[in-house]
């Protein structure tokens, strides 16, 4: 129950020009910032996590992630109906998406593009097949080939193979298909990809009734579609639209199809994941900030009982957030979602500013008489006066926070730079709003309600130093433990930071496996300035990889040269083809002994002769085939730089054997004796290590800059206090708080990520305010009662605001929320523990 009404109009007898000016400038600033924020471009792609000066491997990674063919891939899975219905749904969805200009290609196994592929392979088989060499065309070679074909005819596959044998007795197409199929075949129902969902049926059929069992078997299929967007994977708005169009296509198809009531669709793929995570960060951030804001409002309301004060308390926060986002948008041209996530952190500090002011007013109002005439009563004298009193401390607090964050601006990573700019601009705006705007808007005779709460809190605080000794030991022990276990403190597996849930990652995996597209970790990369050189190098690498495959070190690999060989290789193959008469004579000799009827091979002779004058295969020859997508994925063509990628599937798990693969690839890249024919830059890349290393660099840099920030804070305190011992005393509670917070997280089974690091920095930012106010109060009169309430309210608001974020499923929000909530409490407790006797001895 409020003892007195604080709800008063901002009734000031005379509006001084300075007040009008200040409010006018502030309103203009808010308006302009809001406009910038509203117009800003928001992103959630990984570019902010990519270094500005990448290594060649990183550059490749970056290119692929930004706009590579792979980044444009969307996998669509449809399930929850019988196979025939799924097939129909798949056809309808594909038909609709094929007419949609957003999609570059849609493949669901239908014959649409596949006939093109078959024609391409058949027509160009002698240019594409590396089996085409002079020895194949000798009488003996032909005989061997014909014998094999004959055996094939007596096998199960013979039923299908016999259509092909008269055209292709040497089995070139079959061989290419074998390579293509490798271990993967996508099952189809009525011509479209419908795959059994592994184990699904069997598991359900253990004990359950027969009908259910039958139904679950019947519905245990999944239709899969593979689509490419036209837009790059990094264009999240476009990815979002494409995703929506796919969902819409499914809903339409579902309504048109009978028995499809229970059917459901899942989308997967890099673009989908990026768009989804942006949505999720957005919705989680919105939801939890709303809850957090509500809690903070309730708290402030409970203390001040005034809606206006509640609103005013949030004013510096709002100003700071707007200014921060606007500054990032202006400096970087776009705002990254993660910056916004970190930005939540600003709330924690900025909301304190108002509270310091509000809570301290009453006391200073009481002792108001002694203030000198200069400040006198223009409007809300008490607010202005209090502001002047606390300003030095507040200013120092803000400056320490700024020091902490501004180091981030020097980073090599745009993500960290954005964070730095955001925090610095936000904090400055928030503190200026507190300093100049708030006092002008506060009710004329604002006073917080009296209470014994402050006294109680103060007596608690006075008892705190007893904990000092045990706490100091604990901190030292924790530091020692941390040093010993320093290897396992940090979590460098980037996938743990992905906002994509495990079940979604698993489904992505399933869809990929169904389509025979497992996650690729290792790949051989080669690049040069022109296409022909790169292709030739890729062919050499492919030969080496084939040897490794035959030796069992890898399971299989892909190469763009499978469908786009170098011109040199194609010309050699052309040369190997014998003239028509020669071939006919040799074939006649081989045919009878191989048990074939005479004259069945006329189509073969015609094809070989046609190939001798055929144009070489170029990238454009592949147009209209699905194989073009494959080649484009494996061949990155940029001006003056053509990169071939040869992904390796099933690298041997044994580390020693892996070393052999690495060595074999390294040998390829090394210049040979003459040096003249050295292959351009062939290297083996481990995508997982590469991405994790990238992240590690990011984290190392963040850590380095955070430490630099701490040093800057220490310097600032020293310059201000002119006392090394006092600086040390001020820093001690903060250091202890950071250490205990980190230890608490680790004890809870959390391994620290970059998000925790930034959150710890924020703990220092927020905590330094507590420490400074605490210290100021002690220095002044040794009594904590007046300042305790404001500190506790600040602390609770931080705990509420961030504690709620800890409930989010987004790693970034969760990490920041939990860390800051714990850290804020620790900072205050440790300030009470460490600062008091120091104050007693120290009278400046």
């Amino acid at each position, binding site marked *: 129950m409020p003892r007195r009404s604080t709800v008063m109009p901002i009734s000031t007898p005379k509006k001084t020009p300075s007040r009008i000016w200040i409010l006018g400038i502030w309103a203009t600033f808010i308006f302009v910032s809001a406009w910038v924020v509203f117009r800003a471009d928001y992103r959630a792609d*990984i570019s902010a*996590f990519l270094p500005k000066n990448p290594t060649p491997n990183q550059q490749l990674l970056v290119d*692929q*992630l930004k706009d590579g063919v*792979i980044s444009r891939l969307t996998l669509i899975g449809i399930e929850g109906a019988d196979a025939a219905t799924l097939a129909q749904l798949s056809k309808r969805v594909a038909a609709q998406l094929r007419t949609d200009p957003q999609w570059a290609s849609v493949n669901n*196994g239908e*014959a649409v593009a*596949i*006939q093109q592929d*078959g024609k391409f*392979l*058949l027509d160009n088989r002698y240019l594409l097949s590396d089996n085409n060499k002079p020895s194949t065309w000798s009488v003996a070679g032909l005989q061997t080939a014909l014998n094999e074909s004959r055996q094939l*005819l*007596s*096998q*199960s596959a*013979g*039923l*299908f193979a016999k*259509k*092909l044998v008269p055209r292709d007795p040497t089995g070139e197409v079959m061989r290419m*298909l074998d390579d*293509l*199929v*490798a*271990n*993967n*075949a*996508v099952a*189809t*129902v*009525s011509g479209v*990809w*419908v795959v*059994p969902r592994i184990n699904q049926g069997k598991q359900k059929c253990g004990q359950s009734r027969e009908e259910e069992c039958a139904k679950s078997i019947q519905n245990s299929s999944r239709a899969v579609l593979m689509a490419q967007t036209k837009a790059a994977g990094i264009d999240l708005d476009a990815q979002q639209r494409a995703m929506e169009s796919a969902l819409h296509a499914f809903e339409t198809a579902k309504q048109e199809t009978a028995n499809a009531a229970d059917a459901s669709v899942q989308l997967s793929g*890099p673009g989908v*994941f*990026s768009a989804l995570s942006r949505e999720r960060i957005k919705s989680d951030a919105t939801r939890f900030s709303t809850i957090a804001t509500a809690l903070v409002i309730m708290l402030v309301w409970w203390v001040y009982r005034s809606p206006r004060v509640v609103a005013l308390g949030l004013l510096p926060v709002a100003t700071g957030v707007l200014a921060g986002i606007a500054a990032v948008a202006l400096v970087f041209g776009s705002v990254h979602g993660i910056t916004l996530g970190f930005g939540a952190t600003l709330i924690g500090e900025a909301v304190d500013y108002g509270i310091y002011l509000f809570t301290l007013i009453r006391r200073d109002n009481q002792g108001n008489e002694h203030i000198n005439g200069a400040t006198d009563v223009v409007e809300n004298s008490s607010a202005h006066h209090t502001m002047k009193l606390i300003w030095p401390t507040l200013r120092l607090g803000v400056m320490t926070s700024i020091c902490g964050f501004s180091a981030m601006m020097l980073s090599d990573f745009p993500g960290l730079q954005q964070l730095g700019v955001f925090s610095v601009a936000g904090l400055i705006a928030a503190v200026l709003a507190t300093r100049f705007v708030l006092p002008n808007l506060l009710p004329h005779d604002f006073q917080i309600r009296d209470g014994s709460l402050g006294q109680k809190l103060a007596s608690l605080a006075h008892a705190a130093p007893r904990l000092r000794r045990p706490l100091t030991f604990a901190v030292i022990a924790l530091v020692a433990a941390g040093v010993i276990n320093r290897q396992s403190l940090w979590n460098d597996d*980037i*996938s743990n*930071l*992905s*906002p*994509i849930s495990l079940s979604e*990652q698993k489904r*992505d995996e399933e869809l*990929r496996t169904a389509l*025979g*597209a*497992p*996650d*690729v970790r290792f790949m051989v990369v080669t690049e040069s300035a022109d296409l022909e050189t790169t292709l030739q190098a890729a062919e050499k690498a492919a030969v080496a990889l084939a040897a490794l495959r035959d030796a069992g070190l890898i399971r299989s690999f*892909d190469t763009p040269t499978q469908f786009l060989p170098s011109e040199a290789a194609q010309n050699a193959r052309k040369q190997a083809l014998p003239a028509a008469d020669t071939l006919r004579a040799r074939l006649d000799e081989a045919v009878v002994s191989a*048990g*074939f009827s*005479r004259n069945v091979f006329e189509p073969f002779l015609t094809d070989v002769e046609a190939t001798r004058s055929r144009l070489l295969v170029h990238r454009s020859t592949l147009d209209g085939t699905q*194989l073009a997508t494959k080649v484009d994925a494996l061949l990155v063509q940029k001006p003056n730089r053509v990169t071939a990628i040869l*992904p390796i*599937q099933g690298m041997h798990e044994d580390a020693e054997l892996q070393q052999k693969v690495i060595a074999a690839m390294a040998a390829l890249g090394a210049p040979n004796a003459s040096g003249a024919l050295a292959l351009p830059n062939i290297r083996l890349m481990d995508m997982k290590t590469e*991405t994790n290393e990238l992240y590690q660099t990011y984290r190392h840099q963040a850590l380095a800059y955070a430490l630099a920030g701490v040093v800057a804070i220490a310097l600032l305190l020293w310059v201000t206090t002119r006392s090394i011992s006092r600086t040390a005393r001020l820093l001690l509670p903060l250091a202890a708080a950071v250490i205990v917070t980190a230890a608490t997280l680790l004890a809870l089974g959390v391994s620290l990520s970059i998000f925790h690091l930034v959150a710890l920095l924020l703990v220092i930012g927020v905590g330094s305010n507590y420490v400074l106010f605490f210290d100021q109060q002690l220095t002044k009169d040794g009594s904590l009662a007046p300042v305790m309430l404001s500190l506790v309210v600040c602390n609770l608001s931080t705990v509420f605001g961030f504690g709620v974020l800890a409930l989010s499923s987004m790693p970034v929000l969760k990490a920041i929320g939990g860390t800051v909530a714990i850290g804020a409490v620790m900072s205050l407790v440790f300030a009470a523990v460490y600062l008091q006797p120091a104050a007693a001895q120290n009278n400046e």
Partner: protein
Amino acid sequence: MTFGKNSLNVIAALKAVAMMLASLSIMAPVSPMAPTSPTSSTSSTSSLHAADANDALLKNVMARLASVKSAKADFVEKRFVKLLNAPAESSGVLIYTAPDRFEKHTKKPLEERMTVERDMVTLDNVARKKQQQIFIPQFPALAAIVDAMRGALSGNLPQLQQAFSIAVSGNATRWKLHLVPLEASQYAYIHAVDVTGRDDFIDAIEIFQSDGDRSLMSMTRAAP
């Protein structure tokens, strides 16, 4: 933030294309001639009495077959293919386990194991060290053959009638089933499958392909 986890994986996806190639574009028969309504050709018998008799015989034969829970037979298969100047011959063992699993283990001239279970065929080409899983409905020709063999082996009349029109001749101890695929896509490859047997044992399966080639698989009971 998806990072590198999902990059470059899909490349291999196009391998999928290959199975389609195998079934659709290259090897599909070029003649899209509609089957001359196979349904009507065999099943409409003139005499109602004869139909009843046939019906009874068919049920009798199927009941005998259905009573077999497992069987093992040596087989010799001859393929009469126009491309070859002599029939291609292979031999091996056929193992059946009720209701829907059978294995054709070819031993000569090249070892190969074809296992049919539910709607999947596993082809294990032992000689070439190549294994392949095939979803049966994907290959109409394969589906026709598998349906005929499995339908006859299991004695499942409704299942057999779903896929074929059936003509039966002979008597209960020496019978012959003439199966004609009902499905146009299957008929495009397979015109008929003749299954002959004694009592509960199938001793020959002859497959007539639409291009005139045929294959004859003869079975003799093997020690279990």
